[in-house]
């Protein structure tokens, strides 16, 4: 599979290690107010408590909130990063820079906190080319030490006093993810469809997904988009992974889940997060697949590379 490199950085990503919502709101509000003064858009992805504190300190009418994702999508950091990029790209298209206030949520820590490592590294790729400043609040002492470590290595800037300062601990997404096992998604039961295929049998993969779409409540274009998304991932699996790959499909009335497994070794799993350059001949399939699904999660283990795609009616 191909790794999309981040384009020239325009994204500003800063960390605030705080003592609680009031401390966080008090320290980030002056930056947000300055952004509003500069004519930027300010938008929030924080808890209700922090949001109330921030809105009280800012001109409430000028502050918006980012869309909350459904649980299945929210559980995948790379999916959240892809959706966040899509939403912020739309906001930026109005011609004004965007200032985002985001916040750690312990409910997403999972068993080891690695969700946050994946999310923040993925945001550094997916938002890399956008005129966005995102300030992330993390507790000084998180439940998992991994969360604190992830916050430190993924943010190039730290808020000290009232200024954003260079963070010498910052590492690129490739360095962060080099040895990190991305968590697999939750296990599902026995699949409704299983098939092994090779390069010359990609049409069997598409036919299997088409059949499942016909039996679901997915509307026609959504179904066709899912077939395309699965085809792109299935193609990657046999082109870059191994000569034979596998499709697993779980067909619900209002939700289809497909997994592609190959035996290839993926250098890093955060693929398809940055929009490819128009002149780039290849490497577009995974990016488009991410745009077409409700969730797309890539992970790897000793058995190879795995991708789960989810589409909901």
């Amino acid at each position, binding site marked *: 599979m191909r790794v999309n490199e981040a384009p020239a950085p325009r994204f500003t990503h800063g960390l605030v290690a705080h003592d609680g919502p009031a401390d966080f709101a008090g320290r980030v509000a002056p930056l947000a107010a300055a952004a509003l003064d500069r004519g930027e858009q300010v938008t929030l992805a924080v808890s209700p408590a922090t949001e109330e504190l921030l809105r009280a300190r800012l001109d409430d009418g000028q502050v918006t909130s980012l869309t909350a994702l459904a649980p299945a999508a929210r559980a995948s950091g790379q999916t959240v990063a892809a959706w966040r990029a899509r939403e912020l790209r739309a906001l930026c298209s109005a011609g004004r820079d965007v200032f985002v206030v985001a916040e750690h949520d312990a409910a997403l820590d999972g068993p080891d906190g690695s969700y946050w490592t994946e999310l923040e590294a993925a945001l550094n790729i997916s938002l890399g080319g956008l005129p966005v400043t995102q300030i992330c609040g993390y507790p000084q002492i998180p439940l998992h030490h991994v969360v604190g470590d992830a916050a430190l290595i993924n943010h190039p800037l730290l808020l000290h006093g009232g200024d954003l300062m260079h963070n010498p601990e910052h590492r690129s997404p490739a360095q962060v993810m080099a040895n990190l096992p991305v968590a697999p998604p939750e296990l599902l039961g026995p699949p409704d469809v299983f098939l092994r295929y090779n390069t010359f049998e*990609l049409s069997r993969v598409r036919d299997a997904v088409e059949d499942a779409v016909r039996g679901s409540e997915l509307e026609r*274009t959504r179904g066709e988009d899912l077939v395309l998304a699965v*085809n792109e991932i299935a*193609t990657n699996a046999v*082109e870059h992974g191994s000569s034979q790959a596998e499709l697993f499909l779980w067909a619900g009335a209002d939700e289809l889940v497909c997994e592609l497994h190959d035996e290839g070794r993926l250098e890093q799993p955060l693929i398809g997060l940055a929009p490819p350059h128009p002149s780039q*001949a290849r490497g577009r*399939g995974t990016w*488009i697949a991410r745009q077409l699904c409700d969730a797309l999660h890539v992970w790897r283990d000793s058995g190879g590379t795995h991708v789960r795609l989810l589409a909901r009616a």
Partner: protein
Amino acid sequence: MIKLAGDLSSGDHVCAIPDSDEHLSELSARFVAGGLRRDEKIFFYDDAGAADAMLRRMYEDGAPVEEPLRTGQLEIIPEEYTRAAFRTPIGALAESVAGTVWDAVDHGYAGARLTGQMHSSVEPGTSATLPEFDGALDSVLGRSPLTALCTYDHGHYTDEQIEIMRALHRDHLALTGAYDDGLMRIVRIDATSARLAGEIDHSNRPKIASLLQSSLDSALRSADASTDIELDMASVRFIDVATAVSFVHAAEMFPASHSLVLNRVRPRVQRILDRCGAPFAPQLRFSDRAPSGTL
């Protein structure tokens, strides 16, 4: 004798061995459309979804479909009747077919045409063998204004059955010089245009690059050739992202004097092209008309 699909007339009994499902529906659709133009009544014996595939291809070819179905000029014989026909004693079957042909003539038609998916003729429980059925059809052709196209596809007939039936038929449909891998079919219309059918993915994408290269080469080497490289996409049901990107990039690499024109692109395929930058490539154009000389 080799017969051209467009030149068939009453009394012709031709055989064709299609390369693929796309080829089968292409042949059937042209045979049916030819009969409609000649004001003949068409009997299409359906089985295994063949009628749907044939009708879909007729739509894509721009041939009339609704009107002949409504008036009964085009009659689809349902699968269960097709199967029952081959369990009918062969003499009675031949008389019944001849009777329906003359009925059609009585209703003002110029004659009748017969084709379809008839592989149930080789399944257990039939009243005769495949060569016997074919002989009975020949006898009907000799005494009524009927034209018949017998298709023997590799999906439903064994190689041995196909060879026997190929040998038994005196007349065969002329083969077009086509690329056909079972998933995608390319039929060249002329030096700078072609009709594509089926699905294009990682397995056959290189053929498209070769086609575009050779078409552009022909256009550049001939002073009289069109400056448009035209691909009729009416029957293309799927392209992958890399194929869409290759169309866009190929057009961008053309000399400024030449364009790539994609005709009759289906909405599903158009959406993929749009996502891959097609609207921003000035030398990639879209048209709703069929290329001249299209099949």
